[in-house]
C-alpha cells in the first residue's frame, strides 16, 4: 500500500505554487531539536479539527500513525492510548497544545506529542477536488519545545482516468480501491497529506537513515501544493 502511495506521489503532477524564498537549510538545522533530543516514543494526540467538515478528524486520526512508525519511531498504540485519554478526560488536544506535557511522559513514556490541526477540509461540489490546510506540531514532552512544525495547503484532485496501463495502472488500482466509498477516498486523501507533510520527519531509531539524514535539505515549513492523480 505504502509503495503505491510513494509511486503515486512520484508520478502525480506536483506543482509547488508557492514556497518560502529563503535558501534551503539542512534538516539538522531546520529540526535541530529533534536531532538534539533524539526522541524515540511518539504519542499521537487526537487531531484538532477547526475545519467545517466533522469527519476530517477521523480521516486524519486513522492515517497519522503509519507514517510516523515508518519514519522509525515507536508510536504509542493509538487505540489503547485513545481509550486511556478518553478515560482521563484528556481527549481534547486543544487543552494541551499550550500546556505542560510532562504528564504524557509519565503516563505513556512519550518523548514527543504529535499535534495535528486541521484548518481546512473543503471538497468541491462534485466531490473530486479536496482542499486541505493542515498543520503538524511536534512538541517535546520533557522541555515543551516545538521540535518540528510544518503547515501545508494541499489541493488534491481525486479523479483518475480509467484504463491506464503501465505505471498509470497502479494509480488506477489505487483509485479503484479508494472509490469503493466516499469515506475510503477521503481516507486516502488524508493518508497522502500525512505522508507528504511528514516525509521531512528526521529518521527515527528504527530507520536505516537514522543518524545520516540530517545532511539532507529540509522542505519548506509552509507550502502550497497541488497533487493530482492524473
Amino acid at each position, binding site marked *: 500500500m505504502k*509503495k503505491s502511495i510513494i509511486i503515486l506521489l512520484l508520478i502525480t503532477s506536483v506543482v509547488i505554487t508557492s514556497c518560502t524564498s529563503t535558501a534551503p537549510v539542512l534538516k539538522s538545522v531546520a529540526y535541530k531539536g529533534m536531532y538534539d533530543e533524539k526522541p524515540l516514543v511518539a504519542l499521537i494526540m487526537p487531531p484538532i479539527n477547526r475545519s467545517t467538515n466533522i*469527519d476530517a478528524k*477521523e480521516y486524519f486520526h486513522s492515517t497519522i500513525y503509519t507514517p510516523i512508525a515508518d519514519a522509525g519511531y515507536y508510536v504509542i498504540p493509538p487505540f489503547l492510548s485513545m481509550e486511556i485519554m478518553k478515560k482521563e478526560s484528556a481527549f481534547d488536544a486543544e487543552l494541551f497544545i499550550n500546556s505542560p506535557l510532562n504528564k504524557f511522559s509519565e503516563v505513556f513514556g512519550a518523548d514527543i506529542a504529535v499535534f495535528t490541526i486541521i484548518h481546512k477540509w473543503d471538497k468541491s461540489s462534485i466531490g473530486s477536488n479536496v482542499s486541505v490546510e493542515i498543520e503538524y506540531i511536534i512538541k517535546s514532552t520533557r522541555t515543551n519545545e516545538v521540535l518540528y512544525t510544518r503547515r501545508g495547503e494541499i489541493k488534491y484532485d481525486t479523479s483518475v482516468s480509467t484504463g491506464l496501463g503501465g505505471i498509470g495502472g497502479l494509480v488506477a488500482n489505487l483509485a479503484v480501491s479508494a472509490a469503493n466509498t466516499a469515506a475510503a477516498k477521503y481516507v486516502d486523501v488524508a493518508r497522502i497529506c500525512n505522508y507528504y507533510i511528514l516525509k521531512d520527519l528526521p529518521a527515527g531509531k528504527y530507520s536505516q537513515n537514522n543518524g545520516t539524514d540530517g545532511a539532507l535539505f529540509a522542505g519548506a515549513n509552509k507550502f502550497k501544493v497541488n497533487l493530482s492523480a492524473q
Partner: protein
Amino acid sequence: MKRIILIITIVSLTSCSAPTNLYTWNKYENSSYNFLKNTNETTSNKLSEEYKKIIKKQKGIRGEVPPGVYADYGFLLLQSNNMAQAREMLQKEIELYPESKVFIERIIKLTE
C-alpha cells in the same frame, strides 16, 4: 549477450521486490477508520483480521511487527474479554519494544 540480459533481468527483479518501507500495513488504515468512525462487532473483527495479517507477514525493510500492533490487537482482545490472549499480546509488545514498558505495564496491571 545472454549473460547481460540475465544480469539485467536479475537486477530488475531484485529492485522490483526490494522493500521500500520499514513495515507493511495491508488495509490497516481503512479498517482503522471504519473502527474509529463506527465501533461495533463487524468493524472490530475486521480490524482484528488486519492485525493478524500484519503480525503474520511483514514484507518491510525491518521484517518486524510494527510498533503498537501487538498492543492494539491486545486491546481488541481485551474488549472481547479474551484476557489471556490479550495479556500475551501486551507482553509481546514489551518484548519487541522495551520502550513501551511504561505504558503497557500500566495496562496489564489494569487487567489484573
